[in-house]
């Protein structure tokens, strides 16, 4: 069986769905960040595949930018997470509920 564009796209979609489920289900902040990374990387796969399919570099450029953005996101995210952990000793989402209504 030859691996075509559709397979990549399906894989990407599946990964994205997994990411979404992770975002919804995870209660641990760190794992939540992982899930968002999965989302972005799912998109990266698709971009790379489509770029190849069209023979156009734009998609890959986009993918690179996404990687860069993801990296900075991790930096900021982890920074926030560490501060929070220092103050509260927990990275459970259910603690983050002082504001509501």
């Amino acid at each position: 069986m030859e691996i075509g564009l559709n397979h990549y796209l399906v894989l990407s979609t599946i990964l994205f769905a997994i990411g979404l489920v992770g975002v919804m289900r995870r209660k641990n902040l760190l794992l939540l960040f992982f899930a968002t990374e999965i989302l972005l990387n799912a998109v990266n796969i698709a971009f790379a595949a489509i770029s190849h399919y069209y023979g156009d570099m734009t998609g890959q450029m986009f993918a690179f930018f996404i990687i860069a953005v993801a990296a900075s996101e991790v930096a900021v995210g982890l920074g926030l997470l560490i501060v929070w952990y220092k103050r509260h000793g927990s990275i459970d989402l259910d603690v983050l509920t002082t504001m509501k209504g």
Partner: protein
Amino acid sequence: MEKYLYIALFAPLVSSLFSLLFTATPKKLFTGIVASLLIITSLISSSILLTHILETGEPIHVTMMTWMQTGGLYIPFGFLVDQVSVTMMMVVTLVSSVVHVYAIGYMDHDKGFNRFFAWLSAFVFSMMILVMSDNYAGLFIGWEGVGLCSWGLIGFWFHKESATWAANEAFIMNRIADLGMLIGLFLIYWNTGTLQYDGAFAAFHQLPTATLTWIGIFLFIGAMGKSAQFPLHTWLADAMEGPTPVSALIHAATMVTAGVYLVIRSHELYSLIPHVGLFIASLGTFVALFAASMALVNRDMKRVIAYSTLSQLGYMFAAAGLGAYWVALFHLMAHAGFKALLFLGAGNVMHAMKDELDPFKMGGLKKVMKWTWIMMVIGSLALAGVIPFAGFFSKDTILEAAYSGNHMVIYGVLLFTAGLTAFYSFRLVALIFHGEERYKLFGVHPHEAYRFMLVAMSPLLLVAIVVGILQTPFFDMVEEVLNGHEYHIEHTLALIMLVGTQLFVGLAILYAYVKYANSKIKVPDGTSKIENSFAYKLLINQYYIPYAYEEYIVKPYRELSEFFWQKIDVKVVDATVDGIASIIYNTGEKTRDMQSGNLSTMLRWMVVGLIILLSLAVIFGFTVKYSGV
């Protein structure tokens, strides 16, 4: 002559305003004197106008200034003195002059002396506007004005609950009728384009009968209220709560006859619609009998006279309805004289008896109040229609008019009522002035009224005695305006009728004396057989009509008002508004939990939103794909 017109009209206004200045101050005798003098000035001016009319026959018509003008409507303050209005002016100014002077004595000890004269003169002014106006709108001003003054005067002793209640009743009942009148005015305006008498009368001839009928009916509704015709009659008896001079002036001589005046003034209308006229006559006849019946048993001196007034108004309407306008006007004039006389006499009695009204508690007053007795007797004779007093001429002519118009039922009823009238008039006289001196049981020491009060009453006495002989000159004067004709019944028949009527009346008087002028009369205590009879109860309770009004109109109105407020306005209309607001607020309150503050939930909301968008996209995509577009 215009000068006198304005003097006649505005002297009462000046008088009223002058007295008004002192309303809040203690009694000042000069307000009464000045007011009386001004009213007498008005009387003199009116007399001058009367002479002028008699001499020249030329009506005086002036337009003072514009009142309202917009669109096609033009209403001036215009005044017309013609044969009819000058008659009314004379009646009004004469009676009011008498009453003013009389009241100086009658209101002697009253705190509201000054206020009384302010109101009384204001009334005269309104009445003058009413009769002198040359258009319906001006008439309406006076119409409402006298209603207002009547309210103020009935409720003059405003500390009394019954007085203020009666005042409000009178005002409101009059307003009901005024609405009818107002509608009549609207009809006249939209059909003729004017409210001036001359313009409207001329135009009436070209209007369809149906329209004229409506106009006639609505105007008459107005007249019914002011003249207290059934079913708007209850206020008149209650209006006796006012000071007696007021009853004499307003509720006997002038205001209540305004309705009759309206019909007479609009005779050009009513002569075009005789079927309405017949209805008016029938209603008048009915009221004549109906009111007389209530007067038979009543134990309140003033109320008896009030019912008698009502009954006589019925006579006037009967005459006016039958087209005998001049007769109606004549009876109006005569009636004003003797009825005012009776009331003022009753006032004397009240004064003497310390405001006692029940004639059963009097008796034998003849000895102490000789002059009053004489006046009351003459007044009663005139009322009863005994020859040669005023009432005979006027009332007899009404009967003749009914007879010659072949309205036998009306004739019969009116004749019968004449008997009743004689009976209740002399029942009163007998109870008050004859028989045992029952008042002694109550420790009252009656005395005759002030001399000047008696003198003041004398013009009325004169009217009651002599006005009858003026019938023919009066006819000559007004026939030009009222297109009337004298009633000539075959001589012998007339003679038979005359004798028969007089006999009937005489018997009634005799019966009254026999029954009530004896020493066996006791103050009724509710145990006698007659007092427990059905007829008596019916009559003493005024056919239960006030009761029915209270029970079936006033109470439901009050309850409905309460219901509208508490249930509809607060619980439905306002609650709906607040309900909408609180629905919005509560929706916010209930759904704010969506913002749980939990990051997981927030993320899920985002995903849910995305999924909704995606599902819609897919649905829409399929729809487009398979709809063949």
